[in-house]
């Protein structure tokens, strides 16, 4: 770690993603990310952390979620790690028309928003177990 990296280790409980959001926002503000993109970053971090808690860690109270951020080459990189096995089946893009008609369940919005707001997203299994989402947001995007 260097002076442009921070890390937050969260209790695996919905609501605690707010801590990571606040830290991410403060960090991004220090790095000079524009206000509108800070809001985007907060949503990205929130949704990735919620997915980690609910789907990665399957709601286990003894599991943890780690969020780390760094700023390098004019880009804020965020990783959100959980102790799960990773995503095998990505949900399709949610279709609100079908959801409204009760033809589909209202799922997949978190992943959809991450992909819409981030400049880059990757999903990887960790070598020593666990799963990580890596997101990037360019300082001047």
């Amino acid at each position, binding site marked *: 770690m260097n002076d442009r990296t921070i890390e937050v280790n969260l209790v695996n*409980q919905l609501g605690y993603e707010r801590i990571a959001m606040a830290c991410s926002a403060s960090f991004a503000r220090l790095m000079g990310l524009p206000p509108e993109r800070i809001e985007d970053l907060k*949503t990205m971090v929130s949704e990735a952390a919620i997915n980690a808690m609910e789907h990665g860690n399957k709601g286990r109270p003894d599991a943890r979620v780690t969020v780390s951020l760094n700023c390098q080459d004019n880009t804020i990189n965020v990783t959100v790690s959980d102790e799960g096995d990773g995503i095998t089946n990505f949900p399709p893009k949610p279709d*609100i028309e079908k959801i*409204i008609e009760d033809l589909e369940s*209202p799922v997949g*919005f*978190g992943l959809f928003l991450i992909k819409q707001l981030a400049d880059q997203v990757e999903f990887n299994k960790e070598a020593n177990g666990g799963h990580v989402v890596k997101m990037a947001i360019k300082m001047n995007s």
Partner: protein
Amino acid sequence: MQQHSNEINLEQHGAVTLFSIKGDITSFSEPFLSEAYQSASTQGVDKILLKIDKEAYINSGGIAALIQILAQSKRNNQNIAITGVSDHFKKIFGMVGITRFADIHETVENALEVMS
């Protein structure tokens, strides 16, 4: 940890029922939204305005809960609109398609003028 809840007050403004929703909108909001909606619908409302706090945190669980209300209002041929959201969440609502089913108004006054 503090339990999440929403306080939702219903007010009648002519033909429009205003839902003033206090607090963040997450998956925990579903029962509160549902109860307020059922309570209003049993009284035969056909115009609903959801007022959300500008500082409210809204996540994908909250978006799903709001969409359930939009779905019910569509089935019941009700006109539904939203006001009070921040510019960021206006953008998010546009991305997920909520704006195809509910107009977003800048202010309550604006909304009431259009909906009346």
